[in-house]
């Protein structure tokens, strides 16, 4: 049990805060849950001292896209295990998608999520995403205004793309009135057909039905064009293809109000991993090819892709220990997000540590309009302490998440999360 002081000092770490342009070895003083000072040799009387020498101190990560499965599928994950897992991954805020049971398409479900997260969660801020349509059915709009009042951060029919373009257009107009934006799962289900992996050489070789990249790109193009015509904002979830990145890049150039994310598995794995039919590689959108992986990295580097979001999608092992075709889609992603991203992006020289931290904290905070993502004096003390150069071997069995479904199990990466703090309170500390 840590002693309770209202003063904490994180001593001697390399403070990397892209939002305020700081990258220096110094101390971080936290008072009453906020950053009180940054500087060298800050006085530490009556303060709880956290030694961060040799470590990196950064704003806590913010995940724009995850599935906490609560209410309704608590056997996969719940708000307790999910927020614990997020804290272990260095996240201080997460946006949970509405495909719960019941669907988060009304204010009472929204309130349930927020209250349970506050009462029983690890301390990570939980920002629920409401449904665009009632029951995610793509026909009638959900009560966006009431959900906003209850605390939703955005709307999405994640997992079930809005097929009806006019509904998308109307929801964009209507949601904008309440200051809510759409996070789109862009996928044409007709083009997906019965596909279970990326269409390419690997799907042909494995005899698994493929999903053409066009399934994603057609809907990205549609979403962009509708947003452009309306002059409204749209955020594209989990972009995974080279063509998708290019569509976003061109739209941004034209001034469309489009933002986009990709996930660690699209920059850290390809469809070659499916060889052997490992159902932990089943995810939607599917793992793509090397050229797509490189395009997602390039998109992150040139700003086309604004943020890295996990699409944390925990499943019970029973749903994965089956034939690839009937295995549930998704990867438990909180606890590998940093090490995979750090290894693939920073260690391999594509971007600086500061840029990566920006993609995982400042950028999503800004897109969501939430506190966090900054260590500037006065900001909430949502902080993560990292040991980027420490090697670790992913052990899915040791996850705090109930979902042990990850293609990264047994692989070695660089980048440990040592401590996570929300509002000045340590919510995760490495054993």
């Amino acid at each position, binding site marked *: 049990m840590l002693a309770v002081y209202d003063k904490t000092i994180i001593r001697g770490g390399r403070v990397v805060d892209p939002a305020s342009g700081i990258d220096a070895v110094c101390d971080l003083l936290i008072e009453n849950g906020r950053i009180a000072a940054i500087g060298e040799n800050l006085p530490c009387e009556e303060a709880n001292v956290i030694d961060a020498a040799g470590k990196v101190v950064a704003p806590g990560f913010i995940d724009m896209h995850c599935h906490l499965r609560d209410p309704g599928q608590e056997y996969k994950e719940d708000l307790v295990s999910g927020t614990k897992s997020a804290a272990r991954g260095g996240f201080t805020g997460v946006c949970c998608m509405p495909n719960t049971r019941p669907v988060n398409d009304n204010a009472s479900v929204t309130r349930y999520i927020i209250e349970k997260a506050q009462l029983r969660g690890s301390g990570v801020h939980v920002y629920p995403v409401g449904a665009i349509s009632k029951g995610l059915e793509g026909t009638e709009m959900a009560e966006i205004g009431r959900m906003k009042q209850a605390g939703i951060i955005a709307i999405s029919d994640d997992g079930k793309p809005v097929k009806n373009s006019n509904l998308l257009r109307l929801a964009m107009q209507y949601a904008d009135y309440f200051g809510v934006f759409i996070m789109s799962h862009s996928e044409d289900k007709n083009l997906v057909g019965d596909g279970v992996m990326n269409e390419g*050489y690997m799907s*042909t*070789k*494995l*005899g*698994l039905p493929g999903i053409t990249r066009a399934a994603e790109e057609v809907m990205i193009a549609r979403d962009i064009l509708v947003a452009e015509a309306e002059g409204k904002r749209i955020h594209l979830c989990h972009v995974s293809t080279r063509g998708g990145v290019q569509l976003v890049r061109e739209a941004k150039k034209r001034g469309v109000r489009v933002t986009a994310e990709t996930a660690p598995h699209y920059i850290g794995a390809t469809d070659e991993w499916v060889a052997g039919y490992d159902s932990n590689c089943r995810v939607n959108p599917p793992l793509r090819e090397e050229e797509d992986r490189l395009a997602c990295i390039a998109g992150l580097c040139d700003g086309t892709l604004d943020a890295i979001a996990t699409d944390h999608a925990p499943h019970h092992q029973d749903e994965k*220990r089956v*034939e690839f075709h009937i295995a549930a889609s998704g990867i438990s992603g909180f606890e590998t997000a940093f090490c995979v991203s750090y290894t693939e992006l920073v260690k391999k020289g594509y971007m600086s540590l500061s840029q990566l931290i920006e993609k995982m904290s400042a950028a999503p905070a800004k897109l969501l309009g939430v506190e966090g993502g900054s260590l500037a004096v006065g900001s909430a003390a949502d902080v993560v302490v990292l040991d980027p150069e420490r090697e670790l071997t992913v052990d899915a069995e040791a996850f705090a998440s109930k979902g042990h479904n990850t293609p990264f199990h047994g692989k070695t990466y660089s980048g440990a999360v040592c401590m996570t703090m929300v509002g000045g309170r340590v919510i995760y500390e490495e054993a």
Partner: protein
Amino acid sequence: MNLKRKDLLGLDGVSREEITGILDTAMMMRQVVRSNNKKTAHLQGKSIVTLFYENSTRTRMSFELASKYMSAAAANISASASSVAKGETLIDTGVTLDQMGTDVIIIRHPMSGAPALLAKHVRSSIINAGDGMNEHPTQALLDMMTMREHLGSLDGIKVAICGDVMHSRVARSNIYGLTTMGAKVVLCAPPTLIPVHIEKLGCTVAPTIEDACEGADVVMGLRIQRERQQKGLFPSVAEYCDNWEITPERVALAKKHALVMHPGPMNRGVEIASSAADGPQSVITQQVESGVAVRMALLYMLTRKEGQF
């Protein structure tokens, strides 16, 4: 010779020596099939189970007869494809069979990779009798046995495969096996039934069926299921036949001694005309006989331990 592997999940990665060994053993086994006393002791004391999640006549029957001709204890389980999603899991079924002392589990399953999943969790040897669109190795082996007998060698021969390549596990296994043995494989199908980058598996795609048949040593048909037309992969059977049906006229473009083959069951008048299927160059019925021999060889070679006879 025996196989230095626990399972036969496909012909991808199976060496020329292994294939030759299986085909040579199968030639000996065929003597048993043709004899008056179809009983040997090769599998005495062994337990063989066929676990089929899809319908099958010839594959299942030939495995069962192969087991019985060689004195194995043979049993079979049928599971309807609809029970796959809601019933006992494949792994649980496999482990259960394992506990009953099975030596070999022969599995057919509508989903690619199911035999690989099973193999990871059981002690028994697994033989893939067809999984989804992936592989059907024993079919390709019996095809190669039939070809080799008629043509002398597989080296340098041209095999035209026409029909639903996309959904065909027979096509994939034949591509792997035949190219390993030095044959040239040419595919032909409507563009909607050719999977992407199939040529990277070592075959070529012919622009027309005439090109495919030209100078071929073997013209092989693949079943066209009616559902493919309903799913919009081609507009009508009539138009399919105009462009891709194996007919005597098209077979005439092949070499004089060319063989007409089909894994069965045939859709006469769709992928193959009866006049071609029943013509003098057809070896379709002989393929069935080769099937029993190949499966006997394989069961024997997989269950035999080093140094045993």
